[in-house]
């Protein structure tokens, strides 16, 4: 297990190579173990991709090596444990194509598929949240069928609306807030993915499993 400093106030614990759902489950276990029993000085634990970043307060740090050893001990114990049940399953309704998915045609053409086939492939995928970042509540979803992998647009859009569902490289995800963005937009969800003042601000958490469910324009309108 390798621990690498991130600046002077965090340590990155590399949990595994590759990024399949088994690694994501281990990352979640390691993060949970450190959070349950945080070594003194630890202020925040962030699971993201194949690693766990542990933030500490350098002003009150007495022994960096001891902190790393304590983090590593917890991580190793968690790794050795059998991963608990897989993460929650979250279903995200998506209205694909049309004005909601201006890049669906490009994505389908690149994959040598019709629009309908591309949608079927996207909505049939089994996804998992590798990390949340970029925007509050923005889940980087792994598990995108390889045929749909599409490079980011060469010029990002200056405004992508909240709810937009897109593909960026090997990842897919939905924009929780309006923002500039370079992903290929294929649809839109009526769900509010982030709301700072509700009890559970983010719909998605690292390690969650995600499925997309196609909905019609009428259903979309009823959601809103």
């Amino acid at each position, binding site marked *: 297990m390798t621990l*690498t*400093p*991130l*600046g*002077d*106030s*965090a340590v*990155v614990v590399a949990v595994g190579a590759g*990024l399949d759902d088994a690694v994501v489950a281990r990352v979640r276990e390691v*993060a949970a173990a450190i959070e349950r029993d945080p070594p003194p000085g630890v*202020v*925040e*634990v*962030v*699971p*993201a*991709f*194949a*690693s766990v*970043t542990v*933030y500490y307060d*350098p*002003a*009150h*740090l007495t022994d*960096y090596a001891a902190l790393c050893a304590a983090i590593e001990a917890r991580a190793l114990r968690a790794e050795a444990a059998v991963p608990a049940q897989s993460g929650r399953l979250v279903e995200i309704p998506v209205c694909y194509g049309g004005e909601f998915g201006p890049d669906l045609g490009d994505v389908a053409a690149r994959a040598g598929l019709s629009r309908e086939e591309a949608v079927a492939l996207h909505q049939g995928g089994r996804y998992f949240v590798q*990390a*949340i*970042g*970029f*925007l*509050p*509540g*923005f889940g*980087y979803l792994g598990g995108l069928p390889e045929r749909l992998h599409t490079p980011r647009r060469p010029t990002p859009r200056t405004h992508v609306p909240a709810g937009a569902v897109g593909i960026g490289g090997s990842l897919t995800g939905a924009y929780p*807030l309006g*923002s500039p963005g370079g992903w290929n937009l294929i649809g839109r969800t009526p769900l509010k993915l*982030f709301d*700072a*003042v509700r009890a559970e*601000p*983010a719909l*998605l*958490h*690292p390690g969650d499993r995600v499925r997309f469910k196609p909905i019609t324009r009428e259903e979309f309108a009823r959601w809103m």
Partner: protein
Amino acid sequence: MDVNVTRAGMLTTVQDLGRRGFRAIGVPLSGAVDAFALRVANLLVGNAENTAGLECTLVGPELIFTRDTLVALGGADFAGLPLWQPSVWRAGETLRLDAARRGCRGYLAVAGGLSVPGVLGSGSTFLRAQFGGTQGRALKDGDVLSAREFARHVAGHWHVDERILPAYSAAPTVRVVAGAQAAEYGGALFEGVFKVSAQSDRMGVRLGGAPLARNGNAELGSATVLPGTIQVPPDGNPIILMADAQTIGGYPQAAHVIGVDLPLVAQLRPGDTVCFREVSLAEAHDAARARERAIGMLREGLAQKFS
């Protein structure tokens, strides 16, 4: 007590020391970009260090208090209010922070503190996602803020011993520790003089100068970042991430500004220059402890002034 905002200034936001515990769901720290300055300004008026105050950017606001109140300014030097010392403002008097004479961000602490609804445990304004502070936005002309009552007795005049202040400068040398991709940039980061771009904001201080060439082209996955991370996009112009920066970044990380020197970056104005010097992680930690000790001494000294 009300604080009437008769003129909002260029970019004035309510900030405390930020929100912790939500980076796992992509919520950045936010809070004062120069946290040192806000902490000290708060101590000067008898507040807890994490109390919400105003972050004033380049051109400050014009305020009228409805009661006599004690205020203090830290960070950037604005005409209109002495820096690093408390002063009493009478009810109805206009406090006018004009253009900053030195530095970029001034922190106005008001005895008792500004009262704003806490969002995710903090009163800090996060402009990008439009929450916190005053409805997630910068102050505008005509706003009325509310400040908590402040009943503590204040004795005499005092100011901060300048020896505890960061070495604020328009051309600082800032200490960094190595980033994950440091080797791919060789020593270029430490040889150049970088100029601060006007595109800088609370998310990041953008630098120009000789672009940094990356010696390597491995595809990088996204990774966690923190305030101080120096990211290098493909154009080679480094960006120093600041308080509102996203929690995960996809660009190579050449280095990280040490926490103790972040206030120096926070006070850079467009056109200022900055150089970098590498230190060990142990040196960075020593500096953090020394800074904390200095603030602790100030805290103890000031505690005796407020009864």
